[in-house]
Structures are given as C-alpha cells and as structure tokens.
C-alpha cells in the first residue's frame, strides 16, 4: 500500500491541485466584510529629517478612514521592531541595536522607509489621499557605498551606532593563522563582492487584520514563513497584545526565500491599527514596494587569503568581510554574516586554521537579512572562488586540488576549526560522479571546438557544504539566538481512521503537504488520501518555529516521526488488549499490529476506532483517543554537501555568457520525494545563476535612490537562461535524526554562484582576465574583456 506513496516515491504534489486550478487562498484573497485598505506613504529620500507632516488636505480626501504617523504609534507605546539575535563583538560586547520604528518618527533612513499609513475605504482612495500628505523633509547626505561605510566623514545612519559599525566580530585565533601564513609556500589572495539581491517572491508581502471588540481578540493574516514566531515577536516585544489574544494565520503563501521570515513594519502597523479603526484592514504590497522594502540579501565586500604548502595542502584561511545590514537591523540580520557564514568557512576541506573578521555596517539602504542560503552562499562563494584561484595560481587541476584537501570519509564526525562538527559525509565520490556526468575529460576538446567558433568556453567547480536543519536550541542559545529551534508535530486521528498531521513548519512552495504525508503514510501505513497536513494557523497548530534554513524535513519531519512513534506505542497497547496478547509480543508492520508467529492482527484503523469508541478498551490503563504531540530538538545541524560543475560559453563580441552544461551531485541524506528534491535543486540553481549572471540591486551611490527598482532594471533568470540540469545523488544518511535526512532547499542557491563565476573566470583566463565581479552581465563581461585588452596593450 505504501510503496507507491511512502518514503522515496515520486508522489505528485497534493497541494498542486489547488495551486494549478486557481483555488489556493492567499492573504489578499480574504473576503473580509467592511474591510478598509491601508497604503503606506514612503520616504523618497535615503536620508532626511522630518520637520513636519501636514495631514490636513489628505484627511479631507474621499474615503479616508484614518491616517497614522510614527507619532501616533509612539504615543500608544508601540515598541521598536526587534533583531532577535544578539551577536557579541570581539570584545564580548553585544552588537549595537539602534531603534527600528514601525513608522518613521523624526528621521527617514532609506528610500521606502514608511512615514504614514492611510486607511481608506479602498486601496485607490488610500493612495490618492497619501499623495496629499505634505512631509517637510530636511534632506541630508546618505551613506550608500558599503566599502566606505566606516570611513571618516561618511554620513552617520544612527547615533546609537557610531561610525556606522554594528559589530566587529571575529572567529578563530588570528595569531595562529598569521603564523601558518608565515610558513606557507604559496598564498592566494582574492577580493570579492557578493552582490546585493532582491528576493522577488511571486506573491508580494501582504497583511490583513481584524479586531473583535467583544473578546479583545486580534486576528492577523500575514504572508509569514513562521506565524508563531511572528506572533511571539508582536506580543512580547512590539505591540504588547497577549499571545492568547492574538491569532496569526499564514494561509497559502506564494514563495518566501527567507524574505517572509521577518517581522516587518506593515503587518505590525496594520494589526495595531485594526482596533483603532474598528474595521478590518487589508494591505498588499505593490511590486515596487517589494523591491524597496522586502529585506534584501547578501551584500558583502570580502578580502580573503589562503595559505598552501608546496604540495597544495591548505594550511590556513583568513577572511575579512564587511557585511551590509541596511538602515535597520531586521529580525535575523546579525546572525547571517556571522554564525551562518564564518562557521562554514572550512567548506569540505581539512584547512586546520581559519580566522574570520566580520564587520557589520548600517547604510541608508533597505534592511538586509536572510535570503535563500543566508550566509552559506556567501561562505561558499569565498571558499570556492579562492580554491579555484589557488588551482590557477599553482597550475593545478581544480578538481585535484579539491580532492587533495577533502575531509576524508573516515574522519567523521569531523570537528572543524570554526565551531561546527560535521556529522557525516563522503565528498570524493560526489566530485567523481559530478565529473563523470559533466564529461570533464572531454572539456578541453569542447573548449577547442568553441574557440574555432570564436567562443570562450570555461568550466567551474563549486564543492559546497551547508549547515542547516536549524538548529540545536542550546547551541543557538549560547550563540545569542533569542528562540529555541525545535519543531512540533501532532498526529490527530479521527475515529474513522483518517489523520491530520499538524506541523509547526510552514509550507510556501516546499511541498510539505505531500512530503509530510508520505512520511506518515510510510510509517503508519495510512493511505495518502487519508492524510491531511495542517499548518500556518497559531490557533489550530501547536507552537512551532516555522520554515527557513532547510529545517522543515530534518527537524519538522523528525517531530512527525516522534509523534508517529507515540501513535504506534499507544496502538500496540490497544491492539494487545484486542488480541488478548502481551504488549511485548505485538509488532507493527505495514500499518497492522500483529502477534509474532500467529495470524492475529489489528489494523491501525481498528485500534484508532477502538480508542474513540472504547467499548472494549483498557480504560484503567490507557486514555481514550488517538492524538499525539511531539517536539523534536535536533542534536546537531545537518550537513548537506555536493559538487556543482558549470560550463559556460562566452561570446567575446557581446559579452554574453551562456550556460551550456550544469551538473549538480548532492548528498541530501535520505530522500523522501525525489521529484520535489529535483524541483528544489532546480529552483535553487536558477536563483544562484540569477545572482551570478543577472541580478543586482543597485543604489545610486550619492543619493541612495534604488536604481534597480523594477523588472526593467532588475533581471530575474528565465527559462532560456539555463540549460537542462544534470543531477546526481550520493547518500550518507544523517546519523542523528530518525529519517536520516539533511535538507535540500538552499543547496542549489548556495553552490551555484561560485560554480558559474569559476566557469566565467576560466573562460576569460586565456585572454588575460584575472578578476571579474559578480554578476557577469554582458556589459560587465564586455567591459572586463576590453579593460584587460587595454591593460595588455599598455
């Protein structure tokens, strides 16, 4: 029964029926009687004082219900939005934490900073009224250029963060690393920029809130990846609404990629105002607002040095990074360039000594926070760029240099010099498989053939590691994280044998409704159609931590396994009673309790029925009902790893880069649904390709205006930008979670930028190009080629 639907089966996604037939239900679809609509007036300046706000004309506009400004929120004691992760600097001091008002009070700090919220009978009336608000701005110079953020004379973003420095943080012992460099036979150095990205979920952020005066209950519908955490933040820190009086619902959500983890200004303001207006309030971001205000990703400037001995063994790695936080610290912003970045700098290698120095800067730009991979793509880009550069410097094959430095399979569990202990892995077979699939041996012939057509062909490797399945709560606590990172699950059977799987994770494209059902189907033998996965509503689900950091299966799935074990344990007692056997003799196989060595059996559904209709039931020993709850706190992170090989062809006349081959071999541990994993890998690679070749969030360096603020100037990857991917798998099951799984949601995006850029660098190397910044747009490639040609001519 379960073979076709259980673990390992390519089950078509249950949720796609509604997504593909237009019957999904998103926040904006909510029919709320007597609804009003919010529109946020935003700063057109990157940095300005607010001398005054004149609402008189706006208040007289048709349809206006109320207008709120930062003063109104301050007067009603609405708190600052919070950063939930306290990072301690190299002197043990907590990071600087400037206030983050829900609506700007006396200063605006980025283009898009909300200044006023207009609530009206329709969206258009709210927008028209907002146009009549007169804000008297005192425009000030802005700090935009990350590399100059700490320079003397750079405009200051917050008085609370002198010199624009949020923290100066380090990991590793600098003196030890310096000593290793002194003995090195060779040192490779690189300077790289990890370009700033704009998330672009298909569904823009949205919020709707309703206040029930009779009960004092607030309901907030939000496009959130973690509704319980959003409720906790709003209750405990920002709005002060008690948790039991606030219900947060994240219904169908159309993509997040990290950008919907955070607690933003708009849902906070809408929720707060709903009780003042006395009618429901709805808000949906326009695409232009998404560009301006969704937390952006990446944005690092890094100098790195790798020390090698004469045989190419890595001796030490030194990394110096400036990370952009934007104008305010978003919910998890401080952790991304530290604990999710520097701790990954060992990669797949035995590098014995690593020192990382990370300085976080505030700038007059939109807040920056976790985006698919969050810190790990940045780490992978540093390591895999410098390793490929070292191979070029030493005239070694990039695969050989990697293989020479891989952590051997016998060394697991492996303690890295940057805090993490890798639980399992076997890297050499992965790169071997990838090289076989990519026909690495045939590459030089393909390069020569391309040259005959006037094309520059290059090949690039990226052997990534990630730490995901966030996370062991006690480790997170020691590192300054403000929450636990376990997950909850509840298996709630109905008397007729069907079951609700209630999870604290949240699906916004990942396919949990299918994968989680497969786990339960496999474990308990319940047919897939009798399983329903429930998530996203704080009133109907147990407290949970949500979905990010490739954690849902490794942590949320493990919680489901624990709950299923409890169901089996209880079912065994019921079955033993029904079969008049000893519990010790009862086994559970393929959905049925059996007495070993006899033909006696009780299907699970029968035990469930007996539990709800306990006429023949050991009531003195066990409670009726079949409804089990479990919480799972992981023992360690999980460590997916893999190798991607990208092959590109560049047209030197136009600068256009075409990806002609792309291979990815991954170790995700055990795989529940190969089709969904392929989808995740494909999507991740495309996002990584987008970063490498197309996407770039650009602010005017003087005025702080967002120049790439629409799809005319911000290029998303499309189907014709990527080839058909060649995928492979190697499996080393995770030893510490019951499913043996490792997580696959971010891997593609983590590894791909380095694979693509290494291929681009390899293609351009024969014509004398040594460095090129990301993204390798046609303009950038063309200018780089011609710059190199000019340099050679001089």
């Amino acid at each position: 029964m379960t073979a076709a639907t259980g673990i390992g089966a390519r089950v078509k996604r249950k949720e796609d029926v509604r997504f593909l037939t237009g019957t999904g239900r998103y926040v904006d679809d909510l029919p709320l009687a007597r609804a009003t609509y919010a529109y946020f007036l935003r700063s057109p300046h990157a940095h300005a004082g607010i001398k005054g706000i004149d609402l008189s004309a706006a208040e007289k506009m048709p349809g206006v219900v109320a207008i709120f400004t930062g003063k109104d929120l301050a007067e009603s004691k609405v708190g600052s939005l919070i950063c939930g992760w306290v990072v301690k600097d190299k002197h043990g001091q907590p990071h600087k934490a400037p206030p983050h008002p829900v609506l700007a009070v006396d200063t605006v700090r980025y283009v898009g900073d909300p200044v006023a919220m207009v609530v009206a009978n329709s969206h258009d009336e709210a927008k028209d009224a907002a146009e009549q608000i007169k804000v008297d701005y005192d425009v000030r110079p802005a700090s935009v250029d990350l590399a100059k953020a700490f320079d003397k004379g750079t405009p200051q973003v917050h008085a609370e963060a002198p010199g624009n420095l949020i923290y100066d943080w380090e990991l590793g012992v600098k003196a030890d690393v310096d000593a290793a460099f002194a003995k090195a036979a060779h040192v490779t150095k690189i300077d790289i920029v990890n370009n700033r990205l704009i998330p672009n979920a298909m569904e823009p952020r949205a919020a709707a809130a309703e206040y029930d005066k009779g009960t004092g209950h607030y309901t907030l519908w939000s496009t959130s990846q973690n509704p319980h955490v959003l409720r906790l933040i709003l209750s405990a820190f920002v709005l002060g609404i008690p948790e039991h009086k606030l219900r947060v619902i994240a219904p169908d959500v159309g993509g997040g990629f990290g950008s919907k983890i955070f607690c933003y200004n708009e849902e906070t303001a809408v929720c707060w105002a709903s009780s003042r207006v006395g009618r429901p309030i709805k808000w949906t971001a326009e695409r232009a607002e998404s560009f301006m205000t969704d937390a952006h990703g990446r944005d690092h400037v890094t100098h790195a040095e790798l020390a090698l001995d004469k045989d190419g063994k890595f001796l030490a790695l030194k990394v110096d990074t400036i990370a952009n936080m934007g104008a305010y610290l978003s919910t998890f912003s401080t952790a991304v360039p530290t604990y999710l970045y520097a701790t990954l700098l060992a990669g797949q290698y035995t590098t014995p000594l690593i020192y990382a120095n990370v300085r976080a800067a505030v700038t007059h730009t939109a807040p920056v926070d976790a985006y698919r991979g969050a810190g790990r793509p940045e780490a992978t880009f540093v390591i895999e760029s410098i390793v490929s550069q070292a191979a070029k410097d030493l005239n070694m094959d990039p695969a050989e240099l990697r293989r020479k430095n891989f952590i051997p399979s016998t060394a697991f569990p492996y303690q890295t010099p940057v805090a993490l202990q890798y639980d399992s892995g076997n890297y050499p077979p992965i790169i071997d498989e990838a090289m076989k699939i990519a026909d690495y041996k045939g590459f030089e012939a393909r390069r020569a053939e391309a040259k005959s057509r006037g094309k520059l062909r290059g090949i690039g490797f990226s052997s990534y590691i990630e730490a995901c399945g966030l996370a062991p709560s006690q480790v997170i606590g020691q590192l300054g994280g403000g929450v636990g990172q376990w997950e909850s699950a509840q298996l709630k059977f109905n008397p007729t044998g069907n079951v609700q799987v209630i999870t604290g994770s949240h699906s916004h494209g990942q396919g949990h409704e299918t994968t989680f059902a497969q786990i339960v189907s496999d474990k308990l033998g319940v047919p897939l159609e009798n399983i329903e996965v429930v998530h996203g509503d704080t009133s109907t689900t147990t407290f949970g931590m949500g979905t990010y950091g490739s954690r849902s299966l490794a942590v949320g799935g493990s919680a489901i396994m624990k709950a299923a074990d409890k169901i089996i344990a209880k079912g065994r007692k019921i079955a033993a009673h029904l079969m008049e056997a000893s519990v010790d003799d009862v086994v559970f196989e393929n959905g049925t309790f059996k007495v070993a060595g006899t033909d006696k059996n009780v299907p699970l559904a029968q035990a469930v029925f007996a539990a709800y209709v306990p006429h023949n039931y050991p009531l003195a020993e066990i409670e009726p009902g079949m409804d089990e709850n479990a919480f799972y706190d992981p023992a360690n992170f999980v460590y997916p790893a893999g190798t991607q090989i990208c092959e590109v062809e560049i047209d030197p006349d136009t600068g256009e880069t075409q990806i002609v081959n792309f291979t990815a071999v991954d170790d995700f541990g055990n795989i529940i649904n190969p089709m969904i994993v392929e989808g995740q890998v494909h999507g991740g690679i495309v996002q990584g390709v987008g970063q490498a070749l197309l996407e770039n969030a650009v602010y005017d360096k003087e005025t702080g205006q967002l120049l790439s603020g629409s799809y005319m100037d911000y290029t998303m990857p499309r189907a014709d930008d990527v080839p058909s991917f060649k995928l492979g798998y190697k499996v080393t099951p995770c030893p510490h979670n019951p499913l043996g799984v490792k997580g696959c949601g971010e891997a593609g995006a983590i590894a791909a930028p380095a694979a693509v850029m290494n291929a681009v660098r390899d293609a351009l190397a024969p014509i004398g190009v040594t460095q090129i910044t990301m993204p390798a747009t046609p303009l950038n490639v063309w200018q780089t080629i011609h710059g190199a040609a000019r340099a050679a001519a001089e």
Partner: protein
Amino acid sequence: MEIKGEYRIAAPREKVFAALNDQAVLQACIPGCESLEKLSDTEMTAKVRLRIGPVSATFNGKVTLSDIDPPNGYRITGEGQGGVAGFAKGGAVVRLADDSGTTVLTYDVDAQVGGKIAQVGARLISGTAKKLADQFFGKFAENVGAAAPVASAG
C-alpha cells in the same frame, strides 16, 4: 547627469533676457506647465505634469531664479513634489552671448529624481531631461525670435 545645449535666437540679448524673466513666456515654454504663479521677482510656484518612462505625475513646486546677471544670464532652479511618484529637482545655468545682433543661448542642465520615478525611470531620466530641455529652449527660442538649434550635446 548633466546636459548642455546651445540655441541661436534672432533677437538682441536684452530682449532675450527680458523674456527669460517673463512669467508668461516661461509658462508657455515649460513642458507640461499647468500653472505658474509669481511670488516675487525671483520666486514662482509651478504645477507641472511630467511623464518619465512609465510614471506620470503632477509636480507641485517652486521655481527660483538666482545669479541674475542681466543681460548675460542667470540660474533657474526648480524642485517639485510628485506625491507617491517621488520628487524631481533640477536647474539650468543659462548664458547669453551677443553675436552680431542675434543671441547665442547656452544652457547647462542638471537634474535629479527620487522615489518611484528613480526606481523605475532612473535609466530614462537622462534622455527625458534632454528632451524636456530641448522642448523648453526650442519653444523659448521660437517665442522670442526665429531660431534654430546650433548644436546640442548630451
């Protein structure tokens, strides 16, 4: 971004300078100008409808004349709020030179936009400002005397 241009106007310099200070002439020549009210000899309020790329908005703002040096030229600056569309500001240094009874007008424009206009139209602002400047000075030259552009360079 800066834009320069030059026009030859078949009128004496004094007449051209007077026209540059004539509110009615300015109103007729500023592209999209819906109203222009004089506050003083050097200050006016204006309402101008502009289209930059896909964004079209009405800007309410102030026009200021400064560095007035009759009949050699002045600086004209404007700053307008376009509501949710953002803001636009810019100015032009206008110089007048006498050339055997006709006047050679040269201008040097700089412009800046912010908010939504910058978000979707920054790429287009250079071309738009050039077009607007040409429209203004072209119409101005036409109004003041028979004229033809000598040369213009972006």
